[in-house]
């Protein structure tokens, strides 16, 4: 018996030898979703072309942030480039984890990124927002869109929804006629990131904002906030039971399976809706920018951006790769691999827009141009968590919407130290 164990031990030790890793010229941390797959494919092309070895580290979405934060806080140069979800940028930038790109642009004889990039896409890459130096470059352009089943909406007497009142009107009729098996609206109610992500666009379209202009006051518990909350709760009443645990996936599935008529979601779902092996609604889902409240609708921006880690030892190589990967040709290839672009020239490229799977590009570009970023604050993850708890309670009905706003105001004030 012991001999067998020694044998197993030998097998295991030989594993040590295999795992001695050959580190590459530089390393990129990406999520294991379509953005990561896209950048991985680009890195393969780059390696073949330049003979540079690029190592791609793929982590589950929820863990890219902590991998980056761990590496940043310990000054471990294990990653050179990190592909970030845009709300993380203030955290990484203000804690000294990201390299200021200004000198690299100067060395390359450039002012900064060219103006073919959408202005909203560039604004999030600067810290402070839109005014500070560049700390990253946009790679995948996402912003929420409003998805709806036009035929069903027509049935309910709404031709093309322009405002949240239209959405409510149609959804109410559809849910009432649905007999508990079909619903007019569905949203992400899961505590934390999901519920916040689906509340913010409504919040903004009623003119509300989390902070005032210069980030000196918290402005959640305001008349605008209350109006947004009223619509949000009205939408909950026409949504299916159980949205309290929904995330983007459940919402998308409900539309693809044809059990709900409308929702806010990310553009990645377009491809799924048009794939007959994944959707019963091929060709039946329409897209539009976010409906208006009392103000024009604004969707939440959700870009993936590339930044250089301050502890990196291969910064110039990393910068060269980033410039290459965000060039118009590469962004077009990235778009053809299924990741929305960040450049106007690619959004309007006829090669792409004539294809069925990219027919949402004009709407998406419009949505990005009208988008709002999540509040730029280094403590955003903590703020999002606190806000998410109160929203989840309001959706679940354990507290009143008014209490939710009041509590959220107090919680965010406490986290940010703004009174």
């Amino acid at each position, binding site marked *: 018996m012991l001999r067998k164990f020694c044998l197993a031990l030998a097998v295991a030790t030989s594993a040590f030898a295999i795992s001695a890793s050959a580190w590459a010229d530089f390393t990129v941390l990406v999520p294991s979703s379509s953005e990561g797959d896209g950048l991985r494919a680009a890195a393969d092309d780059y390696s073949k072309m330049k003979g540079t070895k690029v190592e791609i580290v793929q982590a589950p979405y929820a863990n890219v942030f902590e991998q980056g934060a761990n590496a940043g806080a*310990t*000054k471990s140069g294990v990653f050179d480039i990190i592909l970030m979800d845009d709300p993380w940028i203030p955290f990484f930038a203000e804690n000294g984890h990201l390299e200021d790109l200004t000198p690299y642009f100067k060395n390359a004889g450039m002012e900064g990124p060219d103006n073919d990039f959408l202005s909203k896409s560039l604004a999030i890459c600067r810290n402070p927002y839109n005014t500070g130096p560049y700390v990253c470059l946009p790679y995948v352009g996402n912003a929420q869109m409003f998805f709806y089943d036009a035929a069903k909406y027509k049935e309910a007497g709404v031709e093309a929804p322009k405002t949240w009142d239209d959405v409510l009107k149609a959804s109410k009729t559809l849910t009432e006629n649905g007999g508990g098996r079909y619903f007019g609206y569905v949203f992400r109610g899961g505590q934390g990131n999901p519920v916040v992500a689906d509340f913010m666009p409504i919040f903004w379209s009623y003119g509300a904002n989390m902070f005032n202009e210069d980030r000196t006051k918290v402005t959640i518990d305001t008349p605008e906030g209350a109006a947004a909350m009223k619509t949000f709760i009205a939408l909950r009443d026409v949504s299916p039971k159980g949205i*309290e645990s929904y995330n983007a996936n459940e919402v998308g599935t409900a539309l693809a399976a044809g059990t709900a008529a409308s929702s806010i979601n990310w553009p990645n779902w377009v491809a799924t809706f048009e794939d007959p092996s994944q959707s019963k609604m091929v060709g039946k889902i329409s897209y539009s920018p976010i409906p208006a409240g009392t103000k024009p609708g604004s969707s939440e921006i959700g870009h993936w951006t590339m930044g250089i880690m301050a502890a990196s030892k291969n910064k110039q190589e990393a910068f060269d790769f980033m410039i290459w990967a965000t060039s118009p040709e590469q962004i077009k290839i990235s778009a053809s691999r299924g990741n929305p672009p960040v450049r106007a020239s690619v959004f309007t490229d006829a090669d792409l827009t004539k294809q069925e799977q990219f027919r949402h590009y004009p709407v998406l570009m419009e949505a990005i141009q009208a988008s709002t970023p999540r509040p730029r604050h280094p403590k955003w993850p903590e703020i999002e968590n606190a806000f998410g708890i109160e929203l989840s309670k309001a959706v679940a009905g354990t507290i009143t919407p008014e209490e939710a706003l009041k509590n959220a105001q107090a919680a965010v004030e406490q986290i940010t130290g703004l009174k």
Partner: protein
Amino acid sequence: MLKYKGELAKSLQPGGSLEHWTERHLRYLMLAPTVLILLVLTIFPSVYMFYAAVHRISPNPDLPWEFVGTGNFVRLISDPQFHVAVRNTAVFTIVAVALEFVLGLGLALLLDRYIRRLSFLKTVLMIPMMLPPIAVAITWKIIYEPQFGVLNEIMFQLGLPVQAWAGDVNLAMFSIIVADVWQWTPFIFLLMLAGLASLPVEPYEAAALDGASSWRQFWDLTLPFLKPVIAIALLLRVMDALRLFDLVFILTGGGPADRTKVLSLYIYQVAYRFADPGYAAAISLFVLFVTIVLSTWFMKRMRLAE
């Protein structure tokens, strides 16, 4: 002195003496690797945890750690999220382990006589334990899905009201418990079967002659005989229940309305989302303290340390 030196010299010679030395110190030599490995692997994390717990640690590597003394522990007292997490963890641990125990023991008692020889069946009943917890969590998510899930389909067919399960404020914790009970009842069931299989026969024959009822036999004989195995099973389960993470992380993310936020999830959020490892260490110390106190008390009661 001389004698000692001589002995040492002798023991270095080839042959018998080294063996003699090994033989004499066998009790330490056999224990040493385990103790050394565990020392090396736990001493650094423990020291780090105690050190971090009295500091405020900025995610910015260029800022020094700020000594805050008992500050992080004082924060525990007034942190409502921590209180919610403690309550939820307590509810989960008590209900889940109790259910697993009652079901596991009940099944074992009922089935001991009938499937003792069917070891094949026992292995089949162990399968839930062998699945990756993350796959289990995702599977239950599909089962609980309010619109498409199998569970609601069954409710619908039976004419019962459909539920939101993991999405319902009042059922979310229950849903988590059911998934955990599904995965871990087999563990208790098997330990109980094992315990039952080695019970002595004579006391039961004597009791039967005295005309004791099945219930009395269970209460007076089976339970006391099973005490050690019950103790170790409960101890292991409670220790694992206190660190529940995967199921909550996947199924509910702590919601709705904070009803399923457990301590592990909160520690994870504080340490990684809010980048506050000092406070996370303080919460962890609290968990460690409670675990040690509970298990010491429990082992004393069960006289397990013998």
